[in-house]
């Protein structure tokens, strides 16, 4: 190592010792919370989204949603099998984070509650055929969740599997949010 490199390394070491955190001079959260509240209110009442939905063709959109979910499920299954076959090898290298109790805890269920309510309300406005399609999509995700949860319980040390469980929970939320937005039944009782 020449002198130049040595100096550069010393500089980088010194830089890494600088504090990464600098507290703001005052609490910025109230300003953020105020904006989030305004966003939420606007999202409920604003007509900005209407032009898009006006052009949305339900008979086309629902099969597309179904196909997307099918692809997602296929990806989950393929990944699960890949993970399952390599579990022994992964157990050596991966750490032991356990997300399951967190994602299923009471706080999460409480946060999910209003969304389920609005999703169900939105679902009620659809025609029987559309409702079957949407329910089928949700069933696919939940069935994937069930399978992944079982696998994660059998292999609690497998981090990849736990990431998949979390991603699938996110897909479920996203799916319900999309349906709630598409049916214009947005959450109204989210506490801000």
């Amino acid at each position, binding site marked *: 190592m020449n002198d130049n490199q040595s100096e550069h390394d010393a500089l980088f070491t*010194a830089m890494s010792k*600088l504090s990464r955190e600098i507290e*703001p001079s005052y609490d910025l*959260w109230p300003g953020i919370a105020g904006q989030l509240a305004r966003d939420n209110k606007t999202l409920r009442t604003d007509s900005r989204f209407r032009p898009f939905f006006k052009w949305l063709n339900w008979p086309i959109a629902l099969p597309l949603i179904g196909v997307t979910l099918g692809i997602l499920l296929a990806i989950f299954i393929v990944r699960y099998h890949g993970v399952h076959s390599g579990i022994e090898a992964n157990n050596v290298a991966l750490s*032991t984070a356990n997300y399951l109790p967190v994602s299923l805890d009471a706080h999460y269920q409480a946060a999910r509650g209003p969304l389920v309510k609005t999703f169900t309300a939105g679902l009620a406005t659809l025609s029987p055929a559309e409702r079957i399609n949407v329910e089928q999509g949700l069933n696919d995700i939940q069935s994937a969740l069930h399978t992944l949860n079982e696998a994660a319980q059998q292999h609690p040390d497998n981090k990849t599997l736990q990431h998949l469980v979390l991603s699938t929970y996110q897909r479920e*939320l996203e799916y319900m949010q999309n349906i709630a937005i598409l049916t214009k039944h947005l959450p109204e009782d989210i*506490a801000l």
Partner: protein
Amino acid sequence: MTIFPSSTLLVSTVSGGIPDLQETSEDGVAKESGLVLRAQAGDVQAFEKIYRHHAARIHGLCLRMLKDVSLAEDCVQETFINAWRHLHRFEARASLATWLHRIAVNVALSRSASKFNIEVDGNMESIDNSDNRDLGVHLDMEQALMQLPCGARYVLVLMGIYGHTHVETAEMLGIAVGTCKAQLHRARKLMAQHLNKE
């Protein structure tokens, strides 16, 4: 040239004891994943906890990029508002800290484009004369850093202080990896010059 108000910098360099997210325990990661899920479901209180955990780090990044206290605070607010709006796009397998950094860098870049080369008055003489040698070194480093041109400073802040790789840094700044390496080389040279002067 003085950039940080003395009180702000004093707190940041002396305390600095908040756990590093990159080094957070497995339990901490799991807890944060749970908070993200709750926030994605619309729980603002969960999002506030995420804010409380990351705000100081995002503020540090914005302050070093923008060199202005009030702009940096605006940048932090905008970062978390954007994060809330796009939280559904966040993937569980990604690092929340890195994702927030990306948003913060985008916001800071857009703000620095509209306001250039800002200097804010402050009073650091009392700290410079401090007996605390480490604190003095930190201040010298911060002052030298603030004298760098924007491109070089951004790269050095993201890589040297926040530990991002060349690829991550280049992606965040929207530049080629080669450019990032060149900027780092330039930053190192200039830092050495500034520190030797002092």
